[in-house]
């Protein structure tokens, strides 16, 4: 393999990985932007998304086949279902504690995470499940590098979701309400915005994006298991911090950047695949030392 081949190969891997990170990071960042909560359960939402997609696809594939024709509707159904799960979690666990001390709501988030992944562990008896998709390996070959159509569709789908989200936040009245709440929740209440409804909507959108990433990860890696959300939750958080937590374009950019850094990082002789997670977390710690506001984040002004 020439240097160019390696670059193209890692660019592809990095973009795919980055797409997953970005989609999950968006949920972190949106929720953080609106209620200043680090939703630890978000990685597990991604995992639940993969499993819901798995169940739905098992049924749908008998009707529509296990190609993209079956996967896309399954993905949309899974996104909707998991979106409602996110709203439910927010309603039961987070809403009663919005005005409680910060520590309480963080601990609840840890509890929700435990509940989610242990439920899946109990149901699946901790086993890996083969994802029932039947996509081939056809694609384009450039030099020694083979890029499948599946990989292209995934990057494309991520782009579509991100553009849709951007339009939603920038153009619709709901997006406007979200942006307003992130600036001043109390003032929004006084202006007649149904704050609870908008917070629920934020959880819906964030959770369904994570579910989309989960389904795609299932298709891409071919197997899913209950612990898959843990590390990606950490990585997505790192992505959100890289881009500037609370910033939507930041989460997209941060995810892609981390995906690419990680892919190229594995090429470094002293990193390799064994140390790639350490590499990403090390990056997070360095970033928090030198630029905690991230690339696109705003400096937070503390008000008393």
């Amino acid at each position, binding site marked *: 393999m020439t240097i160019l081949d390696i670059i193209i190969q890692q660019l592809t891997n990095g973009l795919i990985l980055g797409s997953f990170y970005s989609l999950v990071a968006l949920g972190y960042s949106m929720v953080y932007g609106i209620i*200043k909560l*680090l939703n*630890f359960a978000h990685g597990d939402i991604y995992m639940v998304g993969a499993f819901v997609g798995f169940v739905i696809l098992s049924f749908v594939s008998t009707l529509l086949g296990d190609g993209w024709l079956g996967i896309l509707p399954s993905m949309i159904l899974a996104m909707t279902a998991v979106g409602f799960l996110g709203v439910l979690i927010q309603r*039961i*666990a987070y809403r*009663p*504690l919005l005005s*409680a*001390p*910060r*520590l*309480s*709501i*963080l*601990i*609840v988030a*840890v*509890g*929700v*995470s*435990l*509940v*989610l992944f*242990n*439920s899946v*562990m*109990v149901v699946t008896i*901790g086993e890996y499940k083969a994802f029932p998709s039947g996509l081939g390996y056809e694609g384009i070959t450039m030099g020694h590098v083979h890029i499948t159509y599946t990989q292209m569709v995934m990057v494309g789908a991520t782009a579509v979701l991100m553009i849709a989200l951007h339009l939603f936040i920038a153009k619709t009245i709901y997006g406007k309400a979200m942006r307003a709440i992130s600036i001043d929740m109390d003032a929004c209440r006084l202006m007649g915005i149904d704050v609870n409804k908008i917070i629920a909507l934020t959880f819906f959108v964030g959770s369904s994006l994570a579910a989309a990433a989960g389904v795609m990860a299932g298709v891409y890696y071919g197997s899913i298991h209950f612990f898959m959300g*843990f*590390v990606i939750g*950490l990585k997505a*958080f*790192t992505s959100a*911090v890289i881009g500037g937590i609370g910033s939507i374009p930041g989460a997209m950019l941060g995810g892609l950047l981390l995906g690419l850094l990680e892919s190229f990082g594995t090429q470094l002789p002293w990193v390799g695949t*064994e*140390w790639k*997670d*350490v590499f990403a*977390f*090390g990056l*997070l*710690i360095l970033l*928090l*030392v030198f630029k*905690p506001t991230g690339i696109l984040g705003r400096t*937070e002004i*503390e008000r*008393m």
Partner: protein
Amino acid sequence: MAEPSTPPPAAAATSGLAGLEERLFVFFDKRSRRRLVQGLLVLAAVSIPLVGDSYLLEILTNSFFYIVLCLGLNIVVGYAGLLDLGYAAFFAVGAYTTGILTSQFDWNFWLTIPAAVFFSIIAGVIIGGPTLRLRSDYLAIVTLGFGEITRIAARNLKELTGGASGLIGINRPSFFGLELNQIHHYYYVFFILVLLAVFVSFRLQHSRLGRAWQYVREDEDAAEAMGIDRVAVKLYAYVIGAVFAGVAGCFFAGKMTAISPETFQFMQSATILMAVVLGGMGKIPGMIVGALALILFPEIFREIGSVRMLVFGVVLVMMMIFRPQGIWPERRN
């Protein structure tokens, strides 16, 4: 927003459970009664090995070990109000320091303890130093990452740590020529460790630093305005908590004589946090109750096995929503 004024004690005493709680508080208000109960508990704990079988001693020794860890995490979470989700990493630092130094460099067990304290402090400063300047939520996720880094490092540094299969053949400690190899030896060792941890926690809680922690926990900005260096104060809490876990880790390695990276998973940190929340953050007796409950519960209900953590998660959420003060809360006026 105006805080509702604290209800008069009479109103609190009306309902059953709250009334009982109030009466207990009143009962233990007298120093002599507290001393008596504490003395009886210590006496009971000291005499158990004379009557109990080795199964009971094993469970109680394990509980003592978790009490020490809970008291350590309590300094971070309860006193200073910081969320640490990678606490098992410090316990790993202690265990691996002892493991590596005794099995590969032939150190005496007791000499590894200062080394473990040293490495725990270093790790605590590296992780806490940069993150504690930021909002405290960042600490939670960085500690989560640190827990993973430690576990991955323990698995990958094969020459030093034995990789995924772990370290075996760690020297057992001996005490004036007596090799500690019976369960009742360890029962007493861990019991002394608990007494030490309780003593240190108690002294810290009522020190100048302890009051500073409480202030920072309740209102960070006001504390800073009063001249408290909030970053330094939080870092002290974080590092002292790390040292507790590090020392506990040394004795864990000495007792087990074998350690592996999987002992220090995220679940371990979550379990310790669970005990702290269950017992009541910030309260020493609460930590003892929490740790005992956590160890005894799966022993009594053996059949729940795999759903144990699921139950813990549900309890954690319910506790925070309905009884955030824990089983044994701090009395606040």
